């Protein structure tokens, strides 16, 4: 199946899946209401979004220089910095580090770029026992699924689904145990994963930010899993994409003030950790070695394109939480690592238009995503950019012809007015009985799901001219 056809099929399946629909119905009361609550409690929130945008724009305009500064300062703190142009190179570097460490068990905290580059599959193919430690990621790992949300990867599941998976996966535990409460499920996962934390030789985390000034990585979680991942094994690997860097610690704080509020609707997540290099002389815990792997994977090309603002993204997920399309179909239907509005903009850039260009159609252009984006990414105009590209593709001949005909007409008022008058009058007469159309030629795809209200029979210009005559003496 072609990606675009698979997308249509995925949408149909998602809409017909009652358990997914029940899970998605909780998003407005959860993340959306939470964000509104904490925003109301911080009067400076809107000003903070502009600060966040400016920090990200400044960083992107000086990205090479801040990355160099990060490398210098991270190595001064004892970390080793590795560079990878592609996802495959990043995977190779990480695999080499794991081999050198003699690793058998590798713990991993949530990292979207690791999903993007297929890291876990690569390490598992090399016979490593790789364990996702974020609870949501662990659940989808044992189900063989991909994340359906960038911060809540198992948002498509209900507690009952998870209980079934745990019974299947944790077969060594008492079959008669009660898993009806979420607390029981969390407790069970805690026990199973604690053992992995204690045996892992390598721990891999992502980074929410890299700080050039100090060579630190900033990692944010609610569970504390990233902290166990980076503190207990003898080797810690940070995987981050080039766009994660910020200039100074002072630049990180405003972004952190925005992140949790926009993401989960918390004022701050339970754990925000700034990690700078490996164990120090005199330390009695922490890893002996710390590696930072910085991967491009197609981002540098975006710097000189119209799409540069998408690299401001701090991966909060607010755009998807507030998207009527995402909330109707969930993340899996998109078929891309990044779903929702940010995915519709980013996925075609990273995976190519043939693979993901159609995702830009998955929007009503209502603009809620732009309104809530903590770094003011113009998501709607960037999605429009992909739609414009799609129009220029050879397969869009009919759309191009229709648009050209429309443009010709719209530029010629003398032709436009009578044509519009005839159309309005005809539709008005035809639709008078019901006041709406259930089906219209050329608009089947629209009317299949909703009625088109019938026009009243006269054009706006006609009504406007008439009113002007009536008002004027």
């Amino acid at each position, binding site marked *: 199946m072609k990606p675009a056809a698979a997308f249509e099929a995925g949408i149909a399946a998602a809409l017909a899946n009652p358990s997914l629909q029940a899970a998605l119905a909780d998003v407005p009361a959860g993340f959306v209401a939470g964000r509104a609550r904490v925003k109301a409690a911080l009067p400076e929130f809107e000003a903070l979004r502009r600060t966040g945008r400016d920090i990200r724009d400044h960083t992107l305009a*000086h990205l090479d220089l801040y990355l160099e500064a990060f490398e210098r300062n991270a190595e001064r703190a004892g970390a080793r910095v590795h560079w990878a142009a592609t996802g495959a*190179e990043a995977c190779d570097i990480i695999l080499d580090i794991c081999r050198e460490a003699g690793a058998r068990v590798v713990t991993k905290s949530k990292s979207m770029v690791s999903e993007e580059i297929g890291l876990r599959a690569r390490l598992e193919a090399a016979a490593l026992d790789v364990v996702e430690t974020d609870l949501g990621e662990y659940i989808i790992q044992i189900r063989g699924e991909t994340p359906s949300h960038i911060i809540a990867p198992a948002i498509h599941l209900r507690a009952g689904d998870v209980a079934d998976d745990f019974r299947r996966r944790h077969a060594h535990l008492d079959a008669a145990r009660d898993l009806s409460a979420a607390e029981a499920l969390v407790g069970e996962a805690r026990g199973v994963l*604690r053992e992995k934390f204690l045996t892992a030789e390598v721990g891999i985390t992502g980074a929410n930010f890299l700080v050039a000034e100090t060579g630190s990585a900033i990692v944010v979680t609610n*569970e504390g899993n990233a902290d166990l991942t980076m503190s207990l094994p003898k080797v810690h690997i940070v995987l981050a994409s080039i766009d994660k860097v910020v200039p100074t610690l*002072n630049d990180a704080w405003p972004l952190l003030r925005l992140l949790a509020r926009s993401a989960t609707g918390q004022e701050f997540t339970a754990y925000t950790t700034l990690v700078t290099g490996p164990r120090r002389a005199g330390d009695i815990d922490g890893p002996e070695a710390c590696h930072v792997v910085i991967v491009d994977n197609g981002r540098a090309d975006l710097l000189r394109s119209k799409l540069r603002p998408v690299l401001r993204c701090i991966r909060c997920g607010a755009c998807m939480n507030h998207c009527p399309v995402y909330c109707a179909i969930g993340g899996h239907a998109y078929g891309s690592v990044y779903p929702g509005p940010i995915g519709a903009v980013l996925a075609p850039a990273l995976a190519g238009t043939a693979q993901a260009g159609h995702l830009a159609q998955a929007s009503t252009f209502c603009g809620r995503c732009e309104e809530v984006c903590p770094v003011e990414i113009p998501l709607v105009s960037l999605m429009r950019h992909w739609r414009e590209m799609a129009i220029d593709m050879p397969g869009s001949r009919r759309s191009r012809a229709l648009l050209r005909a429309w443009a010709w007409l719209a530029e010629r008022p003398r032709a436009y007015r009578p044509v519009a008058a005839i159309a309005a009058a005809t539709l008005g007469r035809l639709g008078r009985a019901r006041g709406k159309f259930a089906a219209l030629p050329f608009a089947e795809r629209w009317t299949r799901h909703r009625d088109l209200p019938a026009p009243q029979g006269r054009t706006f210009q006609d009504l406007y001219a008439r009113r002007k005559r009536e008002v004027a003496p």
Partner: protein
Amino acid sequence: MSSEQVLGRIRAALDHDAPRSARTASTVDRLARPPEHPLPARARRPAEELVHQFVAIQSGLGVDLIEVGSPADIPPAIEGYLLGLGLACRLRHGSDPLLVALPWSASPHLVVDIGAARDGDPVGLSRAVAGVAETGTLALASGADNPVTLGFVPDTHIVVLRADTIVGSYEAACALVRAAFDGAMPRTLNLVTGASRTGDIGGKIVMGAHGPRRLAVILIRGVV
């Protein structure tokens, strides 16, 4: 893969916009003089109000707050807290001078060890460098004095905080941390806002996902 290949591609894209010399000057300047972004009003209140705000947010987060007048009151406060909850009275802390000097022997139920956390430890005790009033956040710096694992491996984490180290913003807390580390950063600076939690199962918040299920703060009100 050399950094030159990755950075070269970025450089090629950006040098197109502005000359390298101007970009370098702007970067050097920002790193030497980090910008001071506006702080929210809730981070700029008088000291006593900040303490109140910190305490209020912490209790909203489900943190158990115990106020003591002086460090000498800490061992009996911990003993009472653990006994009250029916928890094991065994704890471990690092070589932080304040914690080492406490009169532990006066609290006969407590078994106190020093070192990094071990599997099965019921209680970890740390001292925070600062409290951040804007979100009720504790700032903990890793090291032999306060091993980072004490805050993540045991089921219960108890944190000692001096009220006079409660500041408004993350910026101010970070300045205190860097002052304590000669301007550098500790290996980890842990900003802790409530105990470990997850919402990953059906959106319901459950405590104790991986880190501590329970967080208690002992606030020293008096002068130390």
